[in-house]
């Protein structure tokens, strides 16, 4: 074997496959179309909301919808001010965050900074089980236990069957796993060298956790909280059962109120013909809900990218 023949052999050898491999191309194409299908879903959502919503805004001026303070779509004369629904959503979401942020973050800090590997592997799944409970069961629990037993009997509060407090509290527990699990990821992503540096300067574990690890993981934790907000805004079954269906610009969390999702669920139970104004109202509120959660989700995605880039 001479040296030249060896050389030509190397030149002939290409990293590309020798045959066109049509089968592989077909498989790749199929796989690509499966992932492109997800874009079609988004387009589908926008289209299915937009078409009836445009029909709705032909009859109801968009500013009346966004700034009106009376929501009475089935009354005569009907009124389509969405503010009461937004206030209801704000109440349940706010109360839910008051529960989910401290408890979720506390659990995350314990699991990431204090727990041993073994303890973490045992405890984390239990927190995650909270995410596996169906939301109707949460709703049932909110009415039967939180409202009736805790708020009425134990605390002696004057509360009706429906209250935003009860719905918000239970929803808060529902989103603990969302906040805890994403925050834990963010805390664990902080490099060990930063903790070691802090310890070397004489800080104890609490000081290191609060002053070094927490600030370093802040954007990731913020992303977790923002995603929690998105969950709370879009949650339907708990509010449909426990928050009631009376639109109400409420100043008292013991009162019931209707949220955006609560309205959609409740209106869907009634019989509204395709193409009627009632039917279109559903989609106008749906479009608003989609827009709000879209903005929240993008903020969350941005924040996650920031901490992924940092380390």
């Amino acid at each position: 074997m001479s040296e030249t023949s060896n050389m030509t052999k190397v030149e002939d050898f290409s990293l590309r496959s020798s045959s066109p491999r049509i089968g592989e191309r077909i498989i790749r194409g199929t796989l690509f179309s499966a992932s492109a299908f997800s874009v079609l879903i988004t387009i589908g959502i926008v289209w299915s909301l937009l078409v009836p919503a445009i029909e709705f805004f032909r009859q109801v001026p968009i500013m009346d919808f966004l700034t009106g303070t009376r929501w009475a779509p089935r009354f005569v004369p009907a009124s389509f001010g969405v503010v009461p629904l937004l206030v209801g959503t704000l109440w349940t979401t706010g109360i839910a965050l008051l529960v989910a942020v401290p408890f979720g973050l506390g659990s995350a800090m314990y699991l990431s900074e204090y727990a041993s590997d073994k303890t973490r592997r045992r405890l984390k799944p239990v927190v995650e089980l909270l995410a596996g409970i169906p939301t109707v069961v949460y709703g049932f629990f909110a009415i039967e236990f939180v409202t009736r037993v805790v708020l009425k009997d134990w605390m002696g509060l004057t509360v009706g069957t429906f209250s935003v407090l009860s719905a918000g509290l239970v929803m808060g527990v529902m989103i603990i796993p969302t906040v805890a699990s994403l925050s834990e990821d963010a805390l664990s992503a902080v490099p060990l060298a930063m903790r070691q540096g802090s310890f070397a300067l004489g800080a104890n574990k609490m000081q290191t956790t609060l002053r070094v690890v927490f600030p370093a993981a802040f954007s990731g934790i913020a992303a977790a909280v923002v995603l929690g907000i998105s969950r709370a805004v879009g949650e339907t079954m708990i509010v449909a059962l426990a928050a009631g269906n009376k639109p109400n610009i409420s100043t008292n969390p013991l009162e019931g109120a209707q949220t955006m999702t609560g309205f959609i669920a409740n209106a869907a139970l009634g019989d509204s013909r395709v193409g009627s104004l009632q039917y279109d109202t559903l989609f106008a509120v749906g479009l608003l809900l989609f827009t709000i959660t879209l903005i929240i989700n993008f903020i969350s995605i941005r924040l996650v990218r920031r901490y992924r880039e940092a380390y």
Partner: protein
Amino acid sequence: MTVQVSNWNIDGKSHEKNFKSIVFLGVLWLSLFIAFLFLIILLVTTAMNGWGRYDLRLFTTYNNTTPADAGARAAILGSLFVVSVTALMAIPIGIAAAVYLEEFADRSKWFNKVIELNIQNLAAVPAILYGMLTLGVLTLLGLKNKNVVIGGSLALALLILPVVILTTREALRAVPQEIRDGSLALGATEVQTVTKQTLPAAVPGIATGTILAVSRAIGEAAPLLLLGALVFITYDPNGLLAGFTTMPIQIFSWTSAAQEEFKQVAAAASMLLLVILLSMNGIAIFIRNKFAKRW
């Protein structure tokens, strides 16, 4: 391993044990404890609310206007049927999409970036909006009756698709690059590498994610509510175009019923649903801990 660093004491004093840091640790413990406590209270109170209804009536009889005779037969079979069709739709498409994004996609291309961002957002879109999308699709197809098995399955499949994609991607990402490189170096094509090496190695992770996604579909009610699944059904669902109801919808309807006695049936059905879902979650976690390889 490096956690021990904090136990080193250069001056011989323990800085861990001052009052503030003990309180801090106590607060962290408490927040975990609250989560557990809530889980236990929820299980116990639901179990107690349903006391007296844990018998075969729940499985064998249809819904009834008399609480004592009401059962969840149609709902149990409906859930089983709808979710099976959901899984058949969502799992293959989800895994295919994940394989493309993780194994083949050139991430610098704009359309791949769009797809990726899009899936992240879809995973956080409120469930009820998938019901509205399905409503739109069924109207477009000209179906008068929206409450059909295929409609419910479509709504739930669209809902869990992003979850399947995201968890499958994570499982594929955990497979070390060396395995792919080794396979390619031995002359396997890219598709052979995926089907014979990467995918089999990721099976435990994919199984965990898929089970969790399917259990979400079993427990979800919001999108089905929009299709009008809250109906009185006293027959077994017998085809893709048959009317249906599911367990969560049935529980919703009993919970919001005026008669107190229905609450008991609702609690009993909730317990059944909880047992199914918590054991699915348990199996998923078991697979993850037992079979997931750590490279």
